[in-house]
């Protein structure tokens, strides 16, 4: 059975199904993170003077490094998609490999941060600050991990669809890239919210 509109554009929306789907999904993710950010705002207002300043309890250099890692990975996934558009599968694999490596590096740095917190006796249950810190970064961590699974699948099994249904595969990489840029976007706002103010 052929699934319609995997490559041809729908006449009503002007998009193929995957792109419409990913944008609707990202809209729901905006509501998820919007709710979590709102929770942070009200916890911080309620905490008053007892709320710790981000730079005092968290590592700004590590978070800055993480931000640069994610920004770089956004660039590499965009280049991977562009490589496919120009029919260069080898280049696509190289850029996708870089993206995966950068994502793994981000998670490694985050794990080091968490380990440091735990070793100093700071857990989500310690206080509201650590509760919302672990929740916000933990949900983001899960999103990165899930994205890496998808990227790894494309890296390992991509050639099969590339040989069989080239345009459909390119579209898959495009929607995966959109998701990846979104998690980068979330971190761009998480960084100042938790670490800098």
């Amino acid at each position, binding site marked *: 059975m052929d699934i319609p509109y995997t490559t041809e554009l729908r006449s009503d929306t002007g998009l193929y199904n995957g792109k419409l789907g990913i944008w609707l999904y990202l*809209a729901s993710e905006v509501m998820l993170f919007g709710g979590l950010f709102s929770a942070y705002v009200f916890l911080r207002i309620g905490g008053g003077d007892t709320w710790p300043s981000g730079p005092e309890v968290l590592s700004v250099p590590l978070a800055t490094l993480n931000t640069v890692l994610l920004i770089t990975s956004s660039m590499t996934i965009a280049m991977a998609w*562009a490589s496919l558009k120009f029919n260069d599968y080898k280049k696509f694999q190289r850029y996708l490999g870089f993206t995966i490596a950068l994502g793994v590096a981000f998670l490694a740095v985050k794990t080091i941060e968490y380990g440091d917190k735990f070793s100093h006796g700071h857990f989500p249950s310690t206080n509201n600050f650590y509760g919302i810190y672990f929740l916000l970064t933990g949900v983001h961590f899960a999103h990165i991990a899930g994205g890496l699974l998808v990227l790894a699948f494309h890296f390992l099994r991509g050639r099969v669809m590339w040989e069989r249904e080239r345009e459909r595969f390119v579209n898959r990489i495009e929607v995966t890239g959109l998701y990846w840029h979104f998690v980068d976007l979330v971190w761009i706002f998480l960084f100042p919210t938790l670490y800098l103010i």
Partner: protein
Amino acid sequence: MGAETEKRDAAAAHTPRNQIAVFVVLVILTLATAGASQTDLAAGPLVAYAIALVQGTLILLVLMHVAREKRSVLGILALTAVLVAGLVILSVAAYYDVLEGSKWSAAPAAVEHEREDLRRHEE
């Protein structure tokens, strides 16, 4: 514009030069954000968020190519913006919507004082 031409134009927008330019700007802005927070400026947090907004806009318009997207996508984004605004407005409204005289009220002491006055008046 034909579909093929549009696709090649979209790919051309992701040339190494464009990508590197966007990447360099984003990294510089990241370092600027971290730097702004280290200053003693009262407006440090505002500056940090303003820079984050610029970065977010750059990622949205260039990397997610919203600038070149169809109206359907812009419609989804506009609806999302309205819903997020609703989320924020309702949350703030709920925060300030408290019963007068309750322990969550801003001025329970003033309300208690008024009640005391009324009681004395009735007596």
